[in-house]
């Protein structure tokens, strides 16, 4: 059973794509928990929703390609601009004016675009383990982009598996490898199982389409100039996907606070949910209404 069930749920259609959303609670302000990489769906917020919904209204939705949304293979639907437009469509459908937008990993790109493009809809942005092009990538991931479309080696190891052909041939093995890196904390069996299961609700053809999506109109390094609301960044110092330096850069560029979580990996909201929940609440309480 889920800890909290939505007060309202449904699908909103934008340009022919149906997006599943859920709404919880009734307090102010509203938290919009954004999607992230399509490899998981909205249930990755399951440790935030019950707590936040006791104090605030919470809206979650799935982006195209996983969860309660259509499985879209058109790369155009995976641009950051499209994600921002999806978010606005969901807010309109829910009748919500302004939100605190929370983005995990790639979701940080959507949250910042949303705030930059629709400033009247966003009163605050929280970035968790942001995956943004703000620094050089981690050394072990430095060449994955170059090798992505190449044939993968025999007996691939580690980040060799971040490879299009490998995804199609051994999707589950890639997923298991990836989440073994996401959850760098010991004793993460349950979060790992959850994430793998969510990943298996979509597939390599969807991730391929997403991967082929267009580059953002505004590079990550410039987006913070356009974000006028307060920004909180939370980053695990043990993050093996996105270096803690990315979080540091996001905090520096946004001139906002940084919560550094020592010993925490790429999904602090899953692995250290109590601290993240309290930080999100502190952030919301400190925002001018």
């Amino acid at each position, binding site marked *: 059973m889920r800890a909290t069930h939505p007060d309202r749920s449904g699908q909103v259609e934008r340009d022919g794509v149906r997006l599943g959303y859920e709404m919880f609670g009734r307090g102010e302000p509203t938290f919009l928990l954004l999607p992230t990489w399509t490899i998981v769906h909205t249930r990755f917020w399951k440790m935030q929703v019950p707590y936040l919904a006791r104090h605030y209204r919470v809206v979650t939705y799935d982006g195209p390609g996983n969860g309660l949304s259509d499985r879209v293979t058109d790369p155009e639907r995976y641009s950051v601009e499209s994600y921002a437009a999806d978010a606005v469509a969901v807010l309109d459908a829910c009748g919500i004016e302004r939100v605190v937008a929370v983005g995990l990993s790639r979701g940080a790109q959507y949250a910042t675009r949303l705030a930059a493009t629709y400033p009247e809809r966003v009163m605050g942005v929280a970035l968790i383990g942001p995956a943004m092009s703000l620094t050089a990538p981690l050394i072990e991931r430095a060449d994955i982009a170059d090798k992505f479309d190449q044939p993968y080696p025999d007996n691939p190891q580690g980040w060799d598996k971040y490879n299009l052909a490998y995804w199609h041939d051994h999707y589950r093995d890639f997923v298991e490898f990836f989440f073994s890196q996401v959850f760098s*904390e*010991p004793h993460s069996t349950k979060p790992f199982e959850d994430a793998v299961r969510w990943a298996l609700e979509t597939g390599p053809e969807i991730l391929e389409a997403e991967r082929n999506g267009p580059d953002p109109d505004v590079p990550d390094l410039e987006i913070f100039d356009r974000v006028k609301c*307060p920004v*909180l960044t939370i980053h695990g110092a043990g993050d093996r996907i996105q270096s803690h330096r990315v979080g540091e850069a996001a*905090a520096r560029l946004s001139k906002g*606070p*940084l*919560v*550094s*979580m*020592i*010993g*925490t990996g790429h999904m602090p909201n899953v692995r*250290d949910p109590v*601290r993240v929940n309290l*930080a999100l609440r*502190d*952030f919301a*309480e*400190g*925002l*001018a*209404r």
Partner: protein
Amino acid sequence: MRAVYPHQEAEVDRDGVEIHYEVFGEGHPTLLLIPPSPITHSRIWKGLVPNLARHFRVVTVDGRGNGKSGRPTGPEEHSQEQTLDDLVAVLDATGTPSAVVVAHCHANWWAVALATAHPERVEALVAIEPGVPYLGTPQPHWVETAPHWDEIIENPAGWRLNNRHAITTQHRRWIEFFFGQQLVEPHSTKQYEDAVSWALETTGEVLAAGEEGFDIGVPDRETAEKMYRSLDVPTLVIHGDRDICQNVDRGVAFAEATGGDLLVVEGAGHLTPAREPVKVNRAIREFVDKIKGVPMSSQVWTRGMDRRKRALFLSSPIGLGHARRDLAVAQELKKLEPDLEIEWLAQHPVTAVLAAAGEKIHPASEWLSSESAHMASEAAGHELHCFQALRRMDEILLANFMIFQEVLDEGNYDLTVGDEAWDVDYYWHENPELKRGSHVWMTDFVGYLPMPEGGDHEAYLTADYNAEMIEHIARFPRIRDRAIFVGNADDIYPDVFGPDLPKIRDWTEEHFDFSGYITGFTPPTEDQVAEWRAELGYDPEEKICIVTVGGSGVGRDLLERVIASYPMAKEKVPELRMVAVAGPRIDPDSLPTQPGLEVHGYVDRLYRHLSVCDLAVVQGGLTTTMELTAAQRPFLYFPLHNHFEQNFHVRHRLDQYGAGRHMDYRSTEPDAVASAIAAEVGRQVTYDKVETDGAQRAARMIAELV
């Protein structure tokens, strides 16, 4: 001493009535604290000012009729209108465009007036036990006595003292009755004494005028209630539910009318700022933070399992003995728990000892109010009434506790060790929800004991303090995870805690573990004695007499008396060499001189001199006398007059070891001092041995909690 002093204080002249104000702190916003005058003045905020001023700017005002303000006796001079203009004048004089107004009791009526007449000057209102007209049920004693205000009543008693004639002719009786009724919480002796003493700073005439002036200009019920509902400021109401001045339903109704937040303090009476200062401090701070929307700041959080084990040590700065023994315990603890990181929250002079040993001192230590300076300020001549001095240290202990709690809330400590950290022990029992981590309490005496000169009243007070401590531990055994008595069961003074209270020894044996005494050093062997004497320049043929009063400023009188005895003693013992140590707080050049007498200021590692001397003349403090006991040296000790610990606890312990010669300062003239020196110097003594493993034993007890 106060815990903090204002950085600005002055008066504004209001048509010939001076209104005194004080300004503390530099934060934002400004809090304007208004006392219900003239029955009291700004010192009612003494428990709040030190803490609030660390976070905000605080302006306190003495309302007309008390404190350092004027004492007008006309009722019209105490009207709401007059008081309102006083407040505006103070805001203007302090350059305060707007403030969060904190008011108690009927001062809330003036706060309402201020927010109504000058809404731009009031950012928010904290209404404590609000005495605003009409709301809720009035207390029957006010209703019953009001019609008789102007009558002359024969032998009035109780609430019938609430009468112009009674108040103007029997001021003190009314005040004592009134505050006796208000402090419904047990063990409120200090709060009661404070409240009465502040009320006695004004006269019955002024009090009566204040009562009558309050009613001037109070509108009808409908208008007043409309004023409350129209207040357009965030409001927090704090109200004790056993308040018999302003019924709690008045506070509840005020919160409803203003749409404000409500904190009902269950079990509390009319004076929550004095009686529940921790809760009130925290509630005000949270409220102000909330309305100001405090932005988040950057922080580092470490996963639980990635954390190093951390301990916070608190070492009492009253007397230097704690520093050395706590350092010894900490060093033993590190041997047992090499991964344990120890930080210290401590103040001068403890920090000097810790810094020299390379210990890590928490930066918040800088904020602590000085307990040793307070103790020094309480001493006069060879006298320190340490029980009353501790009681009068209440606001300093509270101020330091609030700092401690903030450090603890942010520090992820697994363990706190408080060596006579009275503030933590007391306020954690009073606010048990604030405890974090494991806690070790250490002390070398248990039980406040009355000095004979204090008579029955002091016996009542010490018993009340002891009873409160016994009740604390019985109700919340989880606060002290371990209680360590630095000594042995035989050291406990053979008495009871008070009438109908347990024997100190029985109770202590039940509630404490015993570490044995902790000297913090190993006394020299006989060979070493000769070696050290040679190093220190003491000839084997000389009879070395060290006179020391430790690190405190309390001791000049004793030094002077012993110095005066020197020529007589020298005559009796020609090989006598007297070395007087003034310590860091007494200027050695200010002491009288004698030919042949040596006077030093600071002496490095004084314990080495004491361990090899032929006689020491000291005060009655535990640390120095026990060092001499451990080193098997003869010594004369003069307990400070009226110091219960030195006169009872320490003396009893020394008797257990058969150590030292007790001397009474008042009755011992210099010639008698000289005779005692002559009799004792160089005497072979065989005291019971002092254990050398006390620090190890204490560390083992603490380590079990890590």
